[in-house]
């Protein structure tokens, strides 16, 4: 199966790979996995005082589409508030990366990673 140029770009030059200390109260951690393919994704957001995402890092074990989806999401969430970040839809990710139908679950995984991270932050700072 041929990957789109954007997927290859993110796969070969992934943005924001890495992580933050998950015990830091300003860090939101989202862990998600796709049982269909066994992909595992960790998305971490560094949240500023006004609820704005200052930085984002990811680590993904999975196929090129899963890595590209999470890499793209780290770029998109920066500068957004947590609430704004949760409005990112998997269809936006799939469209941007031109993912084929069999790889749609990778974009769903990235969307769910944002939601999981935001939920983690709210739980931490409740």
């Amino acid at each position, binding site marked *: 199966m041929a990957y789109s140029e954007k997927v290859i770009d993110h796969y070969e030059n992934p943005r924001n790979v890495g992580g933050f200390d998950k015990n830091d109260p300003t860090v939101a*951690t989202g*862990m*998600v996995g*796709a*049982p269909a393919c*066994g992909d595992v994704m*960790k998305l971490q957001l560094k949240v500023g005082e006004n609820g704005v995402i200052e930085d984002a890092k990811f*680590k993904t074990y999975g196929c090129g589409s899963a890595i590209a989806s999470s890499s793209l999401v780290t770029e998109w969430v920066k500068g957004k508030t947590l609430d704004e970040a949760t409005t990112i839809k998997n269809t936006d990710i799939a469209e941007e990366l031109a993912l084929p139908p069999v790889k749609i679950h990778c974009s769903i995984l990235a969307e769910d990673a944002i939601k999981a991270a935001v939920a983690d932050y709210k739980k931490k700072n409740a």
Partner: protein
Amino acid sequence: MNYFSLFNLPETLTLDTHALASSYQTLQKLTHPDKFATASAQEQRIAMQKNAQVNDGYSVLKHPLSRAQHLLSLRGLVIDHEQHTLGDPEFLMQQMEWRETLEEISSDEAALEEMQTEIQANIKDKLTGLASLFEDEQSNNEDIANEIRKLTFIYKFSAQIDAQLDKLDDF
């Protein structure tokens, strides 16, 4: 389609693999297209369908993971080819750590083999737990589904270790 009844086997996760293999051979012979070479077109078609069912059933029952999925579907929940996301942070963190370790030991054959032994023991534990969940009629289907989903990750990881070991052998 209940493959357990097709193969005349009890509906359990732990399965007698010899009984499965011998039942498969018998059914294979009974439905083999060669046997129907002189039969009517309709009989040939039916035999072909049966033969395909036998082959499908065998591949489903052979592997514990697809067997568990089939067993769950008989309880009313279909989870194969789903797009469900698993959100169990503790389990996923462990999966992440395993994958990080695999990267670190990727050229160390002994360490890889040791890890594979550990993963196989983990799979065995999980299958035992899953088998007792299936035996309990009160078990919640969604709980069973989650255990099967977790096993998917572990089997995938085990296959990755094997792939890495194969790679080392090629040198």
